[in-house]
């Protein structure tokens, strides 16, 4: 029985797991949003929220406790000076986890973990945009492949009929074709992204 067994080991020893959380905390506090697996995101959340709560007090003991889990001084400073003040009115619930879809390669469900006040970048910073597009390509490559394999005709029809509002009518078949193209381009987009994804893991 696994009654009252709390948490996941994530296939790691204690030290390895802690090191993973340290890496992920730095990435999260730097970028405000990271993409990882659902299991890792769910384990990371309480750790991350504890850091924000500690940082809200701003005291020296809090700084020292945070420093044990956020070994990067610049990032810790950013947590205390920029992130924690934004959540002054909250006691927990600083982060949000949203499922993105299965990862190509091993099918693990990916999730975004981000601060609740995170505002997605609109068009502008090219670097940001490209990483986001490739993420979408990744998700869509999976679904596109599934559709093509199992029920290509059915979904194509669904796209035609369901896409009623605005310019969706015209966009749908085009997007469908592009999804297929994106699936072909997958290796390039993925290798570009994989460096960052690895870091987040």
């Amino acid at each position, binding site marked *: 029985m696994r009654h009252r067994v709390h948490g996941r080991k994530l296939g790691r020893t204690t030290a390895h797991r802690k090191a993973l959380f340290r890496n992920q905390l730095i990435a999260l506090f730097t970028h405000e949003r990271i993409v990882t697996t659902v299991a890792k995101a769910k384990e990371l959340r309480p750790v991350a929220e504890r850091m924000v709560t500690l940082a809200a007090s701003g005291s020296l003991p809090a700084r020292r406790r945070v420093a044990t889990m956020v070994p990067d001084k610049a990032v810790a400073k950013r947590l205390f000076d920029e992130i924690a003040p934004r959540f002054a009115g909250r006691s927990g619930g600083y982060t949000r986890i949203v*499922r993105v879809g299965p990862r190509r390669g091993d099918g693990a469900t990916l999730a*975004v973990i981000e601060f609740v006040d995170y505002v*997605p970048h609109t068009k502008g910073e090219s670097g940001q945009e490209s990483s*986001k597009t490739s993420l*979408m390509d990744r*998700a869509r490559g999976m679904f596109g492949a599934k559709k093509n394999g199992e029920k290509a005709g059915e979904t194509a029809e669904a796209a035609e009929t369901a896409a009623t509002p605005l310019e969706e009518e015209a966009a749908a078949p085009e997007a469908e074709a592009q999804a297929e193209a994106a699936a072909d381009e997958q290796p390039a987009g993925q290798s570009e992204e994989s460096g960052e994804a690895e870091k987040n893991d």
Partner: protein
Amino acid sequence: MANPKRRHSKARRNKRRAHDALTQPGWSVCPTCFEPKPPHCVCPHCGSYRGRTVIEVEELD
């Protein structure tokens, strides 16, 4: 060494496989773009989740 005495008939084989069918994965409909999407997931078509929260921007051109 123990060996099968008889070859299994097609009927036996097929009866065994009668319970092997896969089920369709669950699907829901994106409330924003009305495309099918996996439930509890960001819509892979428009990148929105729970209406307001636009998580991923699409734009592949």
